[in-house]
């Protein structure tokens, strides 16, 4: 049995720093033996989760940090992205983006990140946190894609 390993990264809430989290998660996923295609999926998911934390959770306040905690288990990689919740709690629902409505100007062209993340990884979503505890978004990638539970 492989021992659990945890790696943490703290980044400022500035656009571009999400790339550090992408690189770190990719390195761990590669070490765990994930296929290149799944590593690309993970990198995009981690990037989008960090962008969400930077832009919405921390309102682009560079003094507010985003923490990325990666936990390697025997059968999965967990990535938790924490922000300071300055943008308030996340919405209860994340509807699928509708390109037809976007093209008609009836829906914002943005707001696709959480949907994309959920399509690319095995599990993803906000974890309940205490009031004023900030937000925690969790991404789960199973080692064996055959176990993917959608």
């Amino acid at each position, binding site marked *: 049995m492989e021992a659990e390993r945890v790696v943490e990264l703290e980044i400022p809430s*500035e*656009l*571009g*720093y*999400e*790339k*550090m989290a992408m690189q770190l998660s990719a390195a761990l996923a590669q070490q765990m033996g994930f296929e290149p*295609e799944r590593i*690309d*999926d993970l990198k*995009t998911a981690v*990037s*989008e989760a960090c*962008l969400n934390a930077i832009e919405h959770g921390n309102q682009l306040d560079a003094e507010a940090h985003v923490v990325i905690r990666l936990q390697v288990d025997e059968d999965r990689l967990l990535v938790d992205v924490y922000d300071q919740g300055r943008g308030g709690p996340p919405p209860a629902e994340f509807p699928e*983006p509708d*390109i*037809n409505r*976007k*093209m008609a*100007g009836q829906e*914002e*062209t*943005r707001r*696709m*990140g959480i*949907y*994309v993340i959920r*399509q*690319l990884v095995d599990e993803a979503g906000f974890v309940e946190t205490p009031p004023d505890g900030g937000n925690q978004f969790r991404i789960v990638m199973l080692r064996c894609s055959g176990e993917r539970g959608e």
Partner: protein
Amino acid sequence: MLNKPTEARLRRTDNAAIIDVSGDVTEQGEQAIKGAYVEALAGDPRRVFLNFGDTEYINTSGIAVLISLVMEAGKAGRKVGLYGMSAHYKKVFTLVRLPLYADMFESEGEALASL
């Protein structure tokens, strides 16, 4: 700043305009991409293509820029073509259903052959 600034360079063929996009495709690249698109239209090409062959990072705010550009093109009766992106970003573009409004091609040759 870890983002690579978006560059969008315009070149032309007989009847098409090609915008070679390099650097990161993010919200910050909006001015570069849309500026090149406006410049491309000045030559009244049959089609404008965006080539992402030198792009390594595209996020959803960058995709929103592309959606906005495709939307503007559509209002003028034009359809933009996209090629050069990695298999991963083709998948992401497909997830958000961008191909409903912009054609995706495997290569520049295939893109130009569509004219």
